[in-house]
């Protein structure tokens, strides 16, 4: 199908974009890479009065290391993340995750800001932001505000962004050298949206987790940090402890059902991911088998 008619404005600056958004409220929408907005418009899931195209705002593009902070402009494309040497060093989890986003032609257009503002519950990047403790940098009429990733994602396609605000960048603390990550997702085919996925970042103190953040996606109505991971921090991980944490995860998350999978299947897959992640990070393959989920 074709999109219904709308007016088009090419934003000349962030202020200009904010002014346009302020004037049209929720009848306007920001166009970044368009790889989620355009399908939704073509399928007539949304119709709008005005599209504000921010594609020309070069200041919103690019990856920059600022001391211990990695700043990624909202217009940075998935393919740019994939090729960025800064990402490889400062947030390797992100690089691994991005390879799972759709296909090359989509990654050449889709942007990190667009994906995060869209907040698809099955998208990879929101979960990565949770695991990496990202801060969202948001501009509005009253200036800039910063929102922790944990407070940003509110529900299906819902975020803390107001209709007259613009996500301009994300900031990530550079991961420590000894920090480790894990990423895996279950999808029907490569490039499809995940049925269940996990992006995790961990810090090990010997054989014990000093930090463990597990961002699940595709399981519920938004990307979510698993509280169950905290049970494994500062404690020797035994099969019994892992099993109990897995059970905690099964009770904690609000698993959704759709045409791809039942809630019970998602609960099972999330527990499999949880156990595999812990076994992989600790390099103890026996944990997944023993501590597991069967």
């Amino acid at each position, binding site marked *: 199908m074709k*999109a219904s008619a709308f007016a*088009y404005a090419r934003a000349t600056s962030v202020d200009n974009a904010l002014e346009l958004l302020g004037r049209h409220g929720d009848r306007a929408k920001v166009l970044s890479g368009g790889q989620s907005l*355009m399908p939704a418009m*073509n*399928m007539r899931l949304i119709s709008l009065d*005005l*599209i504000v*195209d921010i594609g020309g705002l070069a200041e919103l593009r690019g990856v920059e290391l600022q001391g211990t902070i990695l700043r990624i402009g909202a217009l940075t494309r998935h393919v740019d993340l994939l090729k960025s040497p800064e990402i490889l060093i400062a947030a390797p989890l992100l690089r691994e995750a991005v390879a799972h986003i759709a296909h090359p032609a*989509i990654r050449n*257009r889709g942007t990190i800001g667009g994906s995060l503002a869209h907040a698809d519950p099955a998208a990879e990047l929101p979960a990565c932001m949770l695991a990496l403790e990202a801060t969202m940098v948001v501009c509005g009429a009253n200036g800039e505000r910063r929102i922790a990733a944990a407070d940003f994602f509110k529900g299906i396609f819902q975020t803390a962004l107001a209709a007259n605000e613009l996500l301009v960048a994300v900031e990530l603390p550079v991961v420590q050298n000894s920090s480790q990550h894990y990423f895996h997702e279950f999808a029907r085919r490569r490039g499809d949206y995940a049925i269940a996925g996990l992006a995790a970042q961990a810090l090990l103190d010997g054989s014990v987790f000093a930090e463990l953040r597990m961002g699940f996606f595709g399981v519920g109505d938004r990307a979510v940090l698993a509280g169950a991971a905290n049970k494994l921090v500062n404690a020797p991980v035994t099969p019994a402890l892992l099993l109990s944490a897995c059970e905690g995860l099964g009770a904690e998350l609000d698993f959704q059902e759709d045409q791809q999978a039942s809630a019970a299947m998602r609960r099972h897959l999330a527990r499999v991911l949880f156990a595999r992640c812990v076994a992989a990070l600790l390099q103890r393959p026996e944990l997944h088998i023993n501590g597991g989920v069967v």
Partner: protein
Amino acid sequence: MTASVGISLRVNGEHIEAQVAPRLNLADFLREHLQLTGTHVGCEHGVCGACTVRVDGDIIRACLMLAVQADARLVETIEGLSDSGEIADLQAAFRERNALQCGYCTPAMLITAQDLLMQQGEPSREQIREHLSGNYCRCTGYQAIVDAVAATASLRNRA
């Protein structure tokens, strides 16, 4: 409020000026305004890959880009790649191996395969499948397509 917008771009080396409605996507612009019907329209929501073209050297979905977004860009379609001879060997390999049947996916399949071959001299079959994974073919079962791309890669390496 939905007034048409003036755009100026290059398509297959040719300078184009046009007035387009904001809702018009690049695939429809190419097909209906420029009669470049080698760019096919399948699903119109970015899943099938039939509308793949090159913009500023990158492959993209022409159904997920507005014509107004192509302003000041360099667009290349299958007509351009074919006429310049850039993919003549790839097209020959597709013919030799029957890597097409109905042909609907073929222009985009060729553009996507060429994109891989430009990035990677000697891709594995796995890498070929991965790169073509966003392009649907409902006839061939992909085997012959992967064969044709692999054969072209090794021929180019020998040349």
